[in-house]
């Protein structure tokens, strides 16, 4: 039992609390990781002196030095490849890819090396690495800066994919990602970067990366989403509550491995499921959730499962991105159609 010898312990200081945006929370998590484990190193384009184009790594070079916070040449392929080499030597590299739109040249290292190293050496070499990348639409960014392509990566065996939806979850999930001994793709919904502030306790506590978060409990319908779309999903839930509907809202957060058990259990309870996905429709995460739910909860379903997704089109440029982004009205429509069955 803790604190039985309290006569000798110093009074413990309560962990600091701050009001944080997601950028602040990520910065605090990185600082904590660098502080607690000297094997943690950060690398990426413009992350050291400039503090990252979104300022997620601001101040970390000054605090931890250029040996641990490194500006790399402008070459994404080798950034990913280097993390594989570094991780096998006991370091815990956290690489930033400046935007997910520039991540595709790293895919060979993720598919062929980072996610296979433990398996192909039967545990002799491992790749505890994190690749961070801002992703998703809604901030009026230039071409190639707004896509959500997590599903392309979710197909890769051995990879973990984590997407926080709030500052508090960004802090706890990033800490867990860095402490995890598997390779992690950590996708940051940049629409949430500065749009939400939360009270954040800097307690160095990680959040689980093997389960969903139930944000609201309800009885009539389950709404499932992740990343920035959690905002619209919660807004839709608010409106449904006003109409007297009891809504359960689940933030998937850990895209892979997927905790389908929580979603299945919720769907068994409510009998109704709507999935909200910013990514394009075909073969997105929603498809996999639907497949697993119908396999295990088919007879408890009271209505067909519905999904609200982006269209199967190239992301429109910023002028017309609202046309693409799933909005609250779409979620409401899908939920009401489901409830009407």
């Amino acid at each position, binding site marked *: 039992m803790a604190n039985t010898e309290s006569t000798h312990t110093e009074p413990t200081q309560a962990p600091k609390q701050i009001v944080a945006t997601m950028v602040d929370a990520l910065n605090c998590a990185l600082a904590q990781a660098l502080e607690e484990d000297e094997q943690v190193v950060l690398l990426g384009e413009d992350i050291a002196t400039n503090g990252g184009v979104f300022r997620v790594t601001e101040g970390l070079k000054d605090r931890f030095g250029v040996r641990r916070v490194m500006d790399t040449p402008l070459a994404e392929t*080798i950034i990913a490849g280097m993390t594989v*080499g570094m991780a096998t030597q006991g370091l815990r590299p956290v690489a930033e890819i400046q935007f997910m739109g520039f991540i595709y040249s790293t895919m060979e290292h993720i598919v062929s090396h980072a996610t296979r190293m433990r398996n192909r050496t039967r545990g002799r070499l491992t790749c505890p690495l994190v690749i961070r990348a801002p992703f998703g639409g809604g901030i009026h960014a230039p071409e190639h800066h707004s896509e959500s392509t997590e599903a392309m990566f979710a197909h890769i065996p051995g990879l973990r994919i984590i997407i926080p939806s709030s500052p508090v979850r960004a802090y706890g999930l990033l800490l867990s990602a860095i402490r995890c001994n598997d390779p992690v793709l950590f996708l940051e919904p940049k629409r949430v970067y500065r749009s939400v502030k939360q009270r954040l306790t800097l307690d160095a506590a990680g959040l689980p990366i093997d389960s969903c978060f139930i944000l609201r409990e309800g009885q009539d319908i389950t709404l499932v989403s992740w990343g920035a779309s959690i905002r619209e999903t919660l807004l839709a839930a608010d409106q449904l509550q006003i109409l007297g509907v009891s809504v359960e809202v689940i933030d998937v957060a850990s895209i892979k491995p997927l905790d389908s058990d929580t979603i299945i259990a919720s769907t068994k309870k409510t009998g109704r499921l709507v999935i909200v996905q910013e990514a394009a429709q075909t073969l997105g995460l929603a498809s996999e959730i639907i497949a697993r739910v119908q396999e295990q909860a088919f007879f408890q379903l009271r209505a067909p499962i519905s999904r609200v997704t982006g269209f199967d089109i190239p992301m429109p440029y910023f002028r017309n991105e609202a046309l693409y982004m799933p909005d609250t009205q779409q979620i409401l429509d899908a939920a009401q159609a489901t409830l009407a069955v």
Partner: protein
Amino acid sequence: MKPTNAQTEVARFQIFKEEYLAADGQLLHPLPQNLSADTLVRFYKHMVYARTFDQKAIALQRTGQLGTYPSALGQEAINTALGMCMLPEDVLVPYYRDHSTRLIRGTPARDLSRYWGGDERGSMFSDLTNPDFPDCVPIATQLSHAAGVATALKIKQLPFATVTTCGDGATSRGEFYEALNLAGVWQLPLVMVVNNNRWAISVPFSKQSSVQTIAQKAIAAEVACLQVDGNDPVGLLKCLDEALKRARGNKGATLIEALTYRLGDHTTADDARRYRAAAELASAQEIEPMIRLRRYLTAQNLWSDELEQAETEQSKARVQVEVKAYLATEPQTPDDFFDYVYETCPPELERQKHFARAKFARLQQAKHGNGHGDQHG
């Protein structure tokens, strides 16, 4: 291109080639000071063993006891020199034709056979403390890993080097340039060795690139570079030793282009007669590394037909022990394919593992049960 009056020379570069032991076994220059004749005898013995294994591996493949295998025939000198120059703590990040380096570094032939025989445990290594990377099939990707390993050594301020190898074809890939560039700008403790064996499967180097040397590609990254006769054990030992010492001493990276010739097919799945003239192969056989070193050692009274025969027989016996151990390897269980995907197996994968166990039992039953199974697998 002649300079105009408006142009002044701002930089000038040269490429040097190092060679000591000519194809006829004659030394062109005295042996380097720290290189003893005994070392060259050991060098020769390593090559005998490597070539014996190579021939056995091909024979195993031809008789269905090994999968597709890439022979290193003709380029054993590069692999052997690397194995002899590296310290145990140096890290090897190889491509897939460095068998001799591996053997010298204590990865036994049973492990190599397991890897090429379709068993993941070949890269687990019998010696779990071996820091080396597994073989790398996706071309040139290992160069980025090596840059990462070298960065880690530098960050940890360890006085060791990273060695990475590739073929001539790999130098056409972007990652070759990305790795060179990083090695230059970060002064990495890295030695990059290009096995220029003149062929990337069916494409000769003349169709791969128009450069006079591969070494010169390092100049674009301000990385030290050198061309060496890759069939010359003396030249290889000298320049690799120097490059490794530079790396370990935190004095920067080196690119070494080792000129050799792939005497065999690309792999056992390839037939080089489809694209390569017999005359070219015949003349390449004249300059291969073992003949020249044997000529030299024989002339020095350090080698003889009797020693040759004894060494060959001993190597065959050693390889036989390894092959026996390889063929006696316990089969893997279905769990093995699920338990190393993540540190701990997630629930969905556990479910799939249970299904795989049942499937495995069914396949075993079909193979062995009741004598009705498929016996050809």
